[in-house]
């Protein structure tokens, strides 16, 4: 028996989310009185997982798997789970992890709970809390299958250090050609930018910014905070920003520690996507904007005056706290 965690990496390095799912798996393993095994695909810093409580790493290194393939990755994780006799498997909530998980659930005959936000309330019966109704509610689900698959929401649990020494073992699963029937022909990815999924801070702009030419200040604010940039739906619909930046019910979910909304009204569909962010700051010139009801901190004022001043203050703060 063990808890298996899939620790996602990119370009040979673990994503921040990998440390979070590992931290979570460690706690679940403690509840069950067992150990944590991670399965890592083409990562070079496997030992690092020990810092987050991983006892053993199954290291898969394969040229075939350099390009993400949901079916092949599901097969790898399944074989790792079987090898370890895992009763709980934990994955993250990145786009790729959410792509892999349903197939993995079928392959393992596992009940799958996605968007999980907390540790199990009990392990017998196995109950966990997840978000539902576009973040307007939570549902406690009971997983009754022998193997349980948990998709942990990003930034829901946090990263917890729990130093052990991780034994790294090479693992060579048999992954047949039939798993590579979707052929990637082009990847178009801004690698230098913080992605919304990984970001601890997200700075988002709405229609109140009037046009794409004004995004410089949103990027400036994101720069000082090391944040990802995002936008409301009309902004991407009008082509001011790429579709991938649109957050909300029909866009990306944001679960950052800090979400700063500039010139966004706070329509219910927008809030649905950002409700699980911990601290929300709103800058809007309309004191009646619904976002003020959802926000923790707010400034009623013109974005074109407030944002440049905020950037300046943050720069001062950083200089003083460097």
């Amino acid at each position, binding site marked *: 028996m063990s808890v298996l965690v899939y620790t996602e990496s990119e370009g040979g390095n673990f994503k921040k989310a990998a440390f979070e799912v590992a931290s979570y798996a460690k706690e679940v393993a403690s509840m069950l009185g067992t150990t944590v095994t991670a399965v890592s695909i083409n990562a070079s810093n496997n030992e690092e997982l020990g810092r987050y409580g991983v006892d053993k790493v199954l290291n898969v290194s394969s040229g075939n798997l350099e390009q993400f393939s*949901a079916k092949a990755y599901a097969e790898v994780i399944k074989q790792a789970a079987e090898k370890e006799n895992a009763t709980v498997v934990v994955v993250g909530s990145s*786009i790729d992890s959410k792509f892999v*998980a*349903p*197939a993995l659930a079928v*392959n393992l005959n*596992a009940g*799958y709970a*996605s968007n999980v936000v907390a540790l199990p309330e009990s392990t017998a019966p196995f109950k966990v809390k997840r978000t*539902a*109704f*576009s973040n*307007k*509610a*939570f*549902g*406690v*689900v*009971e*997983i009754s*299958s022998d193997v349980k698959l948990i998709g942990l929401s990003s930034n829901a649990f946090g990263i917890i250090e729990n130093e052990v020494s991780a034994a790294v073992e090479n693992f060579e699963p048999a992954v047949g050609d039939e798993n590579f*029937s*979707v*052929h*990637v*022909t*082009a*990847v*178009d*990815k*801004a*690698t230098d930018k913080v*992605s919304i*999924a990984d970001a*601890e801070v997200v700075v988002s702009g709405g229609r109140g910014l009037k046009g794409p030419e004004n995004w410089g200040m949103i990027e400036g604010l994101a720069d000082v*905070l090391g944040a990802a940039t995002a936008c409301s739906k009309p902004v991407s*619909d009008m082509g001011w920003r790429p*579709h991938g930046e649109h957050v909300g019910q029909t*866009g990306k979910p944001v679960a950052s*520690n*800090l979400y700063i909304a500039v010139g966004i009204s706070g329509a*219910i*569909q927008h809030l649905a996507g950002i409700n699980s962010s*911990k*601290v929300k*700051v*709103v800058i809007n010139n309309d004191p009646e904007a619904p976002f*003020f*009801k*959802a926000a*923790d*901190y707010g*400034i009623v004022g*013109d974005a074109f*005056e407030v944002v440049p*001043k905020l950037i300046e203050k*943050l720069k*001062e*703060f950083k200089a003083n*706290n460097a």
Partner: protein
Amino acid sequence: MKILVCISHVPDTTSKINFSEGDTKFDTNGVQFVINPNDEFGLTRAMWFKEKQGASVDVVNVGGAETEPTLRKALAIGADNAIRVNAEATDGFFVAKQLEKVVKDGGYDLVIAGRESIDYNGGMVPGMLAALTGANFVNTCIGLEVEGDTATVTREVDGGKETATAKLPLIVGGQKGLVEESDLRIPNMRGIMMARKKPLTVVDPVAAEEGVKTVQFEKPAPKGDVTLVSPDNIGELVDLLHNEAKVI
């Protein structure tokens, strides 16, 4: 080409969410139901194939009789046939098992589902359906073309997008981007009249084990009031974010 579009019947996006029976059931009182937004993009893309390349389009929902108006709406938009699997859609795997049978019986080349439904947000039905049927699968699909037996798909990835090719049969988990929002269709009178005459077949469910069950719902704790900071004193916001919220 034979296309199946999976339609989830979900509360309208602006619905207030309430629960009944000791917070164990979603309270449908006063709730308006709609086609799941992600599915609506898929349905419109399917209409495009029908009109531009020639294709038949069926729609399917797993649900009770109360979901029929949603299926009729899909027929009014232009789908040819509707299928309803007569069972309460309790868990994603159960739904995928029902769809597996519909897909196998119907011999579809292309199945378009939504990336996730906006009620339970499971994000699992299309992927599970693909695993059960053995079809190729692309999730978070934002672009879809088919030529002969090969599809070219674009999917969203964290921080960008990716293009791939795959042979049919193919299942996609679709979302906005499959078509633009301005292309979404509202049923017109003629469509509504025609939809009344189109077939809506009700089929019995197959047995499937239920692995995951929602036993309790909760609403988030009410939020405290917003702390307003004067635009003349922006330093205070930086201070609050550092000392009080501890996020910078």
